[in-house]
């Protein structure tokens, strides 16, 4: 075992005929990690494997240097988990619930209660902490779920779709909370999401999954810089004809929304204007592409078209 945060070694998880994860091998160091992929890509399965709630069909895992299958309790003492779905206890007050989950995580009663107050204040539920959870809004429920995940001060938090069901303002606030905790240091996060923009500027490492298969994993900066620089073009006119003409000139082109992304040999933009001249298209914009995790995911998914989420 290594001293890394997470390690999976050829992990495959199969449910009857469905392969939720396929031969996944990654190693991630402490930090804030984006676990990114569309619905059905195996994100929740991976989180449950990391918690020891599921056993891999084959392969092995390590969380904070421990095997979740062999030492599930030691792993779970070190991990806070925020599930995606609503799983709260509606008959309890916010503070009662968080303190209770702290005690079930092994905190003594007084400590659990004082920490519950502290984390509920942090997540912005100080005023509502004595209200029953059944009276909470969706945003408040998400916050109390985050609070229960951090109440026992775990060095690793697994957050499964923390912005699920939130309006834009609530989403920003939730991501702000995660960012604040992340900046504090000493605690790692795995942020599982299918909303790629959620990870931008927040995570320092990323694990991209599609249809249970690994697209890429590692530090965001390295992954983004490792890709060939692209140029973004917006065209008015015969776009398919423009793309075909560029391809004939040996320029690698892909379409993303209303934009074309091209890889220009040695940055020479002349082929673009030549093609524009030939096809009568107007170049409305031309500039370097600002790479994002979303771009990276889309380009990797395009390169592996056989990996279609079930």
């Amino acid at each position, binding site marked *: 075992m290594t001293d890394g945060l997470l390690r999976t070694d050829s992990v495959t998880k199969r*449910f009857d005929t469905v392969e*939720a994860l396929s031969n996944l091998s990654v190693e991630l160091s402490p930090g804030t990690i984006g676990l990114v992929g569309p619905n059905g890509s195996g994100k*929740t*399965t991976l989180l*449950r494997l990391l*918690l020891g*709630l*599921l056993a891999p069909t084959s392969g092995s895992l390590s969380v904070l240097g421990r095997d979740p299958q062999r030492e*599930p*309790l*030691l792993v*779970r*003492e070190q*991990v806070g*988990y925020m*599930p995606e*779905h*609503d*799983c*709260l*206890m*509606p*008959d309890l007050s916010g503070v009662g619930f968080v303190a*209770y*989950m702290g*005690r*079930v*995580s*092994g*905190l*003594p009663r007084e*400590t659990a209660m*004082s*920490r519950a107050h*502290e*984390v509920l*204040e*942090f*997540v*912005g539920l*100080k005023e509502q902490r004595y209200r029953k959870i059944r009276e909470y809004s969706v945003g408040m429920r998400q916050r109390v779920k985050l609070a*229960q995940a*951090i109440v026992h*001060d775990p060095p690793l938090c697994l957050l499964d779709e923390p912005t699920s069901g939130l309006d834009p303002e609530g989403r920003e*606030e939730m991501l702000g*909370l995660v960012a*604040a*905790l992340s*900046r*504090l240091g000493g605690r790692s996060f795995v942020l599982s999401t299918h909303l790629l923009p959620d990870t931008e500027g927040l995570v320092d490492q990323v694990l991209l999954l599609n249809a249970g298969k690994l697209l890429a994993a590692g530090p965001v900066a390295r992954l983004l810089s490792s890709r060939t620089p692209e140029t973004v073009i917006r065209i008015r006119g015969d776009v398919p004809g423009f793309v075909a003409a560029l391809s004939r000139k040996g320029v690698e082109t892909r379409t993303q929304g209303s934009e074309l992304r091209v890889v220009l040999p040695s940055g020479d933009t002349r082929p673009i204007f030549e093609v524009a001249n030939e096809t009568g298209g107007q170049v409305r914009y031309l500039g370097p592409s600002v790479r994002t995790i979303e771009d990276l995911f889309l380009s990797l998914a395009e390169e592996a078209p056989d990996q279609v989420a079930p």
Partner: protein
Amino acid sequence: MSISAPRYGAAPVAKTGRIHRALTIAHREFNRRSGVGTVAVVTLTYLAITLVLTINTSFASLTGTVTLATFETPYSSPAWPFLMLIVATSVGAGGLAEDVGNRSITLYLSRPIRLIDYLAAKSAATGTWLVIAAVGPGLAGLAVVLVLGWAPSSLVLTGAGAFVATGLLACIFFTGLALALSSLTTRALYAGVAIFGVVLSLEIGAPLVSGITGNTSVAYASPINDLLSVAQSAFGISGPYATDPATSAVVLALSGVFFAVFAGWRMSRVEVVGE
């Protein structure tokens, strides 16, 4: 919203062990079931059994005929098993069903506890309520008898043993049954109806089938019949029941254990299905 993240001012604390965590769950579950309905039924049980026991013993003491069988009076009709059935439904039906229904089972199992700890905690909470309802009233009645001097202490002690034995047997059976049926649904109401349905169906069906087929062993399928048979035997009475008390006791105990194991198996499947 707070402008700073929690820093947990206190120094790192020593974590509690698995038993303490399970007891935390059991304590919450016990409190959660202490609603008006449960308290009313348990109070009714105390009043009924204590009154019947003390009144009957007081009359017997006047004629000097107090024996172990005198204490059996509260168990001489199916009223007692029915009260246990109501208590089991009230405290046990929602034990697992509600956690599966609101999916808090996921939170429990993501904590540093095992499924067996969780199930033991739920069983302990349900079982404690049943012990309070099944054993407590008899002991309370005997305490009154002892204080008033209506029976010798040795006889009262023997009677207490009989109440404890039959009460624990009822507790094991009904706890297991309630957990098993609670694990099959996501609603306490459905589980409660199922508990009643199963017990009453067996109470009606077993003697009927036994009578039609002439196979007396079918009568063991009726838990109420088994409980009354065991209770009468414990108090030294040869009852009118067709079942052997020892066999009935074994059937009840094994059924309870089987149901509890089934609940465990079922809950281990729920997590996988939930995926």
